[in-house]
């Protein structure tokens, strides 16, 4: 099949549909995912095609949604659930941490819970409070979960198919601000497995490490830097857990300088981990400490101030400028 132009929302919808066609144990449920098709329309048409039993609305209770999904996964199903917005996944936290993440381990491998938790996440859409949290650190810190975040439509399709096929629970983070950005994609082409990072743009002077909504910003920064004669490599993590140490470290070693870019508050975050583990592994290849451009350690701002908080091209370039070039 040839490449086509489509949005990440289209690609995710297609992935769900194709997965449900391929395997009738795949189910989709959550709040407003039935007739409405989800507040972002990611589940559009699924109830019509697969019926009320395969794609359905639940009562309004996130712990209930995830708890029921765990039970269904224990009993032969592959549920995909939607948490309507990032911050509305918090009521399900105990089910996530104490059960979804631990079921296989508690039962010494006897009971796996193959389920996918789709979370429309992060900001940049002018949403009011509780609608723009970047909550990946909570999940990434929890052993037993896979955590992935696509940054373009093709990868969104491929990663979601792989997440649904995974025997383990996958936190699938969908950058809301990328839902409706359109790009060329050939959905028939395979994508790298979960656990693999990819170099999205080659470069020789420094490496930008990003994931999810920060990837397009990093690419833009690299483009701007190129204009100024600086060559920035961009790595898209794709998978936060498992983490692809090999690709990331190879990239950082090749440039000797790196900046991690992420929307979440920086303190005790995924970006901290990237700095820590890459530094541990690449210390003697580094010309300067790895820097971070992240959200500040503040609650997500109201719409009129989010631009101050979000990693911007300028802030990335300023940080790259700061990477002690005079020393090298």
């Amino acid at each position, binding site marked *: 099949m040839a490449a086509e132009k489509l949005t990440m929302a289209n690609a995710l919808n297609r992935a769900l549909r194709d997965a449900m066609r391929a395997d009738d144990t795949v189910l989709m449920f959550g709040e407003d995912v039935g007739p*409405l098709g989800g507040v972002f329309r990611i589940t559009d048409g699924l109830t019509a095609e697969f019926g009320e039993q395969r794609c359905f609305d639940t*009562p309004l209770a996130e712990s209930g949604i995830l708890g029921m999904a765990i039970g269904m996964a224990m009993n032969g199903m592959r549920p995909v659930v939607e948490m309507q917005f990032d911050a509305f996944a918090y009521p399900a936290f105990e089910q996530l941490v104490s059960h979804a993440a631990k079921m296989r381990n508690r039962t010494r491998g006897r009971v796996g819970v193959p389920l996918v938790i789709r979370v429309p996440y992060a900001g940049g859409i002018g949403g009011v409070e509780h609608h723009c949290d970047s909550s990946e650190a909570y999940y990434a810190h929890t052993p037993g979960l896979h955590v992935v975040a696509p940054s373009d439509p093709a990868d969104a399709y491929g990663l979601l198919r792989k997440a649904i096929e995974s025997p383990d629970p996958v936190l699938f983070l969908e950058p809301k601000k990328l839902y409706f950005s359109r790009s060329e994609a050939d959905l028939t082409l395979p994508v790298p497995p979960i656990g693999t990072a990819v170099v999205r743009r080659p470069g020789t002077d420094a490496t930008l490490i990003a994931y999810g909504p920060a990837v397009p910003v990093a690419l833009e920064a690299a483009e701007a830097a190129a204009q100024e004669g600086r060559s920035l490599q961009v790595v898209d993590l794709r998978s936060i857990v498992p983490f692809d140490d090999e690709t990331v470290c190879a990239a950082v070693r090749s440039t000797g300088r790196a900046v991690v870019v992420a929307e979440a508050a920086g303190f005790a975050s995924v970006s901290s981990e990237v700095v820590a583990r890459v530094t541990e592994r690449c210390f003697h290849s580094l010309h300067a400490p790895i820097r971070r451009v992240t959200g*500040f350690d503040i*609650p997500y701002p109201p719409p009129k101030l989010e631009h101050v*908080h979000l990693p911007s091209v300028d802030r990335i370039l300023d940080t790259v400028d700061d990477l002690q070039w005079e020393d090298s």
Partner: protein
Amino acid sequence: MTRDAALLLPSTEPVTLIDPDGNPVHVGQDMPDPQALVHAYAALIAARRFNDQANALVRQGRLAVYPSSHGQEACQVACVQVLDPGDWLFPTYRDSAAIVARGVDPVQALTLLRGDWHSGYDPLATRVAPQATPLATHLLHAVGVAHAARLRGEPTVVMAVCGDGATSEGDFHEALNFAAVFRTPVVFFIQNNEYAISVPLARQTAAPSLAHKGIGYGVPGARVDGNDVAALLSVLGAAVDRARAGDGPQLVEAHTYRVQPHTNADDPGRYRSADEVTPWLARDPITRVETYLRGRGLLDDDTIAGYGVDAEKLAETMRAGLGEDTVADYRDLFAHVYAEPTPQLREQQALVADELSREEAR
């Protein structure tokens, strides 16, 4: 408080005092006195105007989003009118009209939905909690506020409002249970408008009614016609009185309907037919009490016109206040995370300050 099932179960049908045609219905319940009804009528006119104006401001791009309470105004005004000044209101995103009925500045009441800040008014001065978006979570805060007041011997009652969808959340359960066990003076007021975004009530519960949840906590449940402001004043007023008297929490379910989309961003055509909506338009809360009051000579054209003028002033205030562009100050982002910013926040604020000064210098 009682554990007698008969006293805890709600009536089979919602209490109505004025029927959709404006005629009084004779039930055991007392009709509120005429002044109260006229006061409520004026508030209804204002609330409707507030909703209409807010919708218009969304279309004009002055508000980011608006979850309207159009058609639910009787609930909005009654739950405020039954309160004393020292009482508290715990509203949701849908209860902006109630907040304004409580006396909060309408522009401040819309700060959240305008996108300026997460909340615009002073909760302690107004005794109105910040509007809650995460569903049912604020019901527990309501219990805490009421419990603190009770420990100090204050006569405070807390009106805690939520929707039908919110009753499915675990926090709803925990709030009712804590209030009941501690005999805390909270009136839990469910505006059952039949929908949680696209999800109809039947997908939310299989119970005879939401008010039937009360008995499971030892809390008396009551059902009331949510488009009948007289019945609402009567039932909510009685609930507030009982709570204040030390009878513990009360649960009131108002049966109403969300005639408009969930918010301006919603598309109800995907999940319900216009035919379902039409009968509810005939049950409009304003016409009903207006017919009743006019029929009894308690309201005339001049008075109505006067309320219209007042409502128009409210709308004018909204247009003026929201028409201005506000200047958002980035320092606010760092100033209120803690009472004192941490060293880390100071550094982060300095980084932004530096960026801005370099931008200006360019």
